[in-house]
Structure formats: structure tokens, C-alpha cells
């Protein structure tokens, strides 16, 4: 039971990151390997703000998330929008370069050791035979709520409808006179914001470090590949699944290999169903 809870708590972080990435990938069609960096920044910044500038916790978290959103907009406007006529190959390379740039800078700024953001609620519940820190419940509820909110946004608001159209047929969307770059930036902002939210909450419950971005981005990709690239709820489910796989693997086989289980699972999925588990037909 404890394993299930552990798995769900970590898993919902992956879900949030994955859902954000699904949005970015469907609307902008950029393989954004740098997706883990806003998450990392929102995880690392609050502690610095709190210790060096005396910023209270809630504000520090909000600033961290705002920084993540700003990074997303920056990626869109300053980097990917300018490279829209370049081959997909180049976009992949560019996003890798961004990962290296940002994480190296982060290590120089914050060092490489793990840390945690203090100040979260530290009540631990004893439910159904497992110890559940209340922070984990906060994370799970937030993940669910934000996915519901995003789903509503996509299906019931004007900007959401426009982004759906862009994902379905980018060519036609341009011809409608839709200012495509603006919505790219919006997709990046929302997606990175979700990643930032995940990072900020994660840092309250678990240890984080400057180099966590790459592995997390890879896990987010694992999640969206599970989900077949286009499905928000598929990504949500995929994140939970990944979390559970890792948790059970760490518990029953070996905790050092925690990350490995997800990667092995990914390889297994890719090799069996190269298009992903929840793959839908979309206009490629």
C-alpha cells in the first residue's frame, strides 16, 4: 500500500510535467527536451529566495512558478519561433543545447547537491495502512485539479479551441489569420507553468537538485509517448503509471535502479507499440 501511495505521489508530478509537454508538443510541434528546466528552476528558486531574501514561502513558490512561465515564453519567442523554418532535426538539437546551457548555469549557481524547500505542512496521515505526508495529498489533488482545468480550457474556451485547431491542422490554422506565434507562446507558457507548478510542489516534499531537469524531461517524454503524444488524460494516466512502476521497482527489486525502471518500461512500450499506448490519429 505504501508503495502505491509513493508511486502516486511521484507519479502525479510526472503527470503534470507530461500534460504540460503534451500541450506544447501538440500545438507547437517542437520536441522540447528543455521542458524539465522550468520545472527545475521552480524547484530550486524558492529556497534561495527564502534564505537570501527572506521571501515568505507562498510568495517564493509563486515567483518560482512565474520564472518557469517566463522561461517557457522565452523558449517560444526567442528560440523556437525564430527557428520555425528549420528542420525538426535542428529543433531537437537546439532543445538539447538549451538543457545543457541551463543546467550547467544552474549547477554553477546552486551547486550540485540535493536540497528541499522547507516550510511545507508536515502532518503525516495514517490512512489505509500507509503513511501519507499531507504534502503528497496536496500534490495529487493539485495535479488532478490542474489537469481538469486544462482540459476545460482546451475544450471550452476560445484560446483552447484555437490551440486545438493548431494541433489538428497547423497549415489551415495559419490561413485563418490566427497569429500562430502568439499561441505558441501561450502553449509554452501554460505547459511550462504546469511544469513549474510540479517542480515547486515537488521541492516541498522531495529532494531536488540542479541537474534534475534532463532526467525529468526524459520522463515527461516517456509519459507522452505512453499516451501517444496527443492525449492529455493519457499523459495523466501515463504519469501515474510511471510513478507506480518506479515505486514498485524500487521497493521490490532495488532502490538504486529507481530511474531505470521507467526507462526500461519506456523501451518496452516503444518496442511493442512504436506509436505509443494511447495513440490517436491526428493530422501529422
Amino acid at each position, binding site marked *: 500500500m505504501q508503495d502505491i501511495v509513493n508511486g502516486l505521489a511521484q507519479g502525479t508530478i510526472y503527470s503534470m510535467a507530461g500534460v504540460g509537454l503534451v500541450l506544447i508538443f501538440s500545438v507547437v510541434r517542437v*520536441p522540447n527536451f528543455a521542458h524539465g528546466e522550468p520545472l527545475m528552476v521552480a524547484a530550486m528558486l524558492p529556497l534561495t529566495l527564502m534564505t537570501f531574501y527572506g521571501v515568505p514561502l507562498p510568495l517564493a513558490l509563486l515567483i518560482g512558478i512565474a520564472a518557469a512561465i517566463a522561461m517557457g515564453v522565452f523558449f517560444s519567442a526567442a528560440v523556437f519561433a525564430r*527557428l520555425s523554418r*528549420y*528542420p*525538426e*532535426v*535542428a529543433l*531537437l*538539437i*537546439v532543445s*538539447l*543545447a*538549451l*538543457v*545543457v*546551457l541551463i543546467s*550547467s*548555469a544552474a*549547477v*554553477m549557481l546552486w551547486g550540485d547537491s540535493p536540497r528541499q524547500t522547507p516550510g511545507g505542512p508536515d502532518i503525516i496521515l495514517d490512512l489505509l495502512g500507509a503513511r501519507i505526508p499531507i504534502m503528497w495529498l496536496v500534490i495529487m489533488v493539485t495535479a488532478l485539479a490542474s489537469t481538469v482545468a486544462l482540459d476545460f480550457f482546451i475544450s471550452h474556451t476560445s484560446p483552447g479551441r484555437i490551440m486545438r485547431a493548431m494541433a489538428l491542422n497547423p497549415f489551415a490554422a495559419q490561413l485563418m489569420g490566427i497569429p500562430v506565434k502568439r499561441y505558441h507562446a501561450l502553449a509554452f507558457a501554460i505547459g511550462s507553468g504546469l511544469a513549474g507548478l510540479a517542480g515547486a510542489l515537488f521541492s516541498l516534499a522531495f529532494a531536488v537538485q540542479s541537474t534534475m531537469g*534532463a*532526467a525529468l524531461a*526524459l520522463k515527461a*517524454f*516517456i509519459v507522452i*509517448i505512453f499516451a501517444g503524444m496527443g492525449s492529455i488524460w493519457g499523459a495523466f494516466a501515463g504519469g501515474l503509471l510511471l510513478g507506480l512502476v518506479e515505486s514498485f521497482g524500487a521497493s521490490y527489486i*532495488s532502490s*538504486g*535502479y529507481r*530511474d*531505470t525502471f521507467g*526507462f*526500461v518500461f*519506456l*523501451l518496452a512500450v*516503444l*518496442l511493442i507499440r*512504436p506509436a505509443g499506448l494511447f495513440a490517436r490519429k491526428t493530422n501529422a
Partner: protein
Amino acid sequence: MHRLTAFLPWLLLLAAMAAVLATGNGYYVTVAMLMMLWAILALGLNFILGYAGYFHLGLGAFYGLGAYGAAAFSASYQMPMIVALLVMPAAGALISVVIGPLMLRTRDLHFAVATLALGMIVSDVTNNWVAVTGGPMGMGGISRPGQIGIGALSIDGATTSGMFIITAAIFLALMIVAAIARRSDFVLILRGIKSDDMMTRSLGFSTTRYKVAAFAIAGAIASVGGVLYAHIVQYISPEPFTFFAASFQAFVVLAVGGLGSLWGPVLGSVLLTGLPEILEMDPHVKLLVYGAVLLIVTIVLPRGLASMGRVLSARARASANAKTKEKQT
């Protein structure tokens, strides 16, 4: 005349190597060996990425495989380097052949993610399987190759210069193989796969077989690099074979030097290994610079340094054309 220009880069290379040896400076010689190692990795990567167009982001796994294998042969079984040099590439190729067909079923992005995952899995294993790999502490006690050759023509692998010559010999051999391969039908077909897989298949080529071969060659060459690394440094740990330390850097070296070119790996390696050494960069700064360089090169020179000649001459031609047009109107 054409023949002469073709030989020129080789002569330059040999001259440079001789010059480095002549300095007798251990530091320079070691840096030059590192340059050759990176060039070897980039050269191997070229087959699967440069020619076939598949984003292999897990080369570090094979690099590490070669190194750990060499460490096992040398430190645990006291076997000479030549054993590892023969066995490890074969092992790398074998593993590639086994997992290759499965992995190569995926396309671009999925393949990149899959190889990334592969690299990370191997990194995790080297870190955790303490009994075999020594975990984070690594494995030491790898001995240099001893005396090779007879009398006056012998090379002492135990010395830095001796090791340099051995490394250089292997590097040159691989360069020659690469040069020959470039003109072969094999590479031509790989290029066909890169530009249009379906078309190539419709011409009757079993593209999977070729892709797996390229994947295996990359793995084998990377393993050779690993063996060399182990015997040069004489101590290995999981660190140098991670994505950031190995796969990514090999990628940058090749991308900067020029995907699919012969001298690209060399040019890229010289620039990206030499410059940080000259500037005495901190490893984190070095990585940051790599990221920045990659960004710049991708945007300005999408085909890498080796294409600079072509790009410059194309620009020169274009401006000359514009000038003649002006004169005409």
C-alpha cells in the same frame, strides 16, 4: 591536381601528430590523445547519425561498455590490451545487432528518446552494480600495454608518448576505414535511407539491415574508444560515460564538425577539446560553452564546420551574381 588536395588534410594530420610528439610535453600529448578519442567517438556516431540520420543519443553506453570491458580484462584477468581491442567492439556490435532491429523500428524522436533511455539505463547500472563495476568508486589498476615491436622500432605503451603512438595508429586506421566507407555502396544506401527511407525500401533494399549495421558500427567504434580510454587513463568510473559527459559531447563534436563529413569529427574534436583546455575551463563552464556553441552552430551553420568552405563559397558566388546583375541593369 585533385589528388593532391585530397592528400593534403592527411599530411596535415600526420604533421600535427608528429609535431605534438616532438614537443615531448606530457600535457600536450595527453590532450592530443583526448582529441583523438573524441574524434573516434564522433566518427562512429557519424555512421548512424551523419549518414543514416538516426539520432543516437546513447553512444556513451557503448563507450562505457568498451571501457568497463577493458578494465575487466586488464585489472581482473591481467590480459593485454589487444584482447579487449578485439573483444569489446565485437561485444558492442553484437549487442547493437540484438537490440538494433527493435530500436530502429521507431522513428526520429522516439529513437532519440529510446537511445537516451538506453544510455541512462547503462549509467544507472554502472553506478549500482557494484560487484561488477565497482559502483561510483569505479575500477582502477588498468595497466598500459607493454613493449610492442622489436629493438629500435619498439614502442613502450607504458609511456605517454608510446600510448600516444598506439592511440594514433588505431585512430588513423579508423579514419582510413571511414574514408573508404564514404565511397562505398553501403554508405550510399545509408544516405538514401536518411533522405527517403520508403523510397530506398521500394528500390529493394532491406533498410532495417543497413540501419542495424550502421548502429552496430557506431557501437563497435565507440567500444574501441572506450578500450583506449581505459588504458590511457588507467582508471574508470561511471561519470565519463553519462549522457552529458559522453553522448552529448560526441554529438556536439559531430554536429559542429559536420554531420556526414570525413573531417568533421576531427575538426569538431580539435575545436571543442582544444579550446576548453587552452582556456582552462571548469568542467561546468565547458559544458555550458558546448551548449552555447551547439546553439550557435545549429542556427548559423546547420551543416557544421566542415561545410564552412561550401557556405562561404556559396555566399561569394551569390554576391558575385548580384554584382553582375547590377552591372547588367
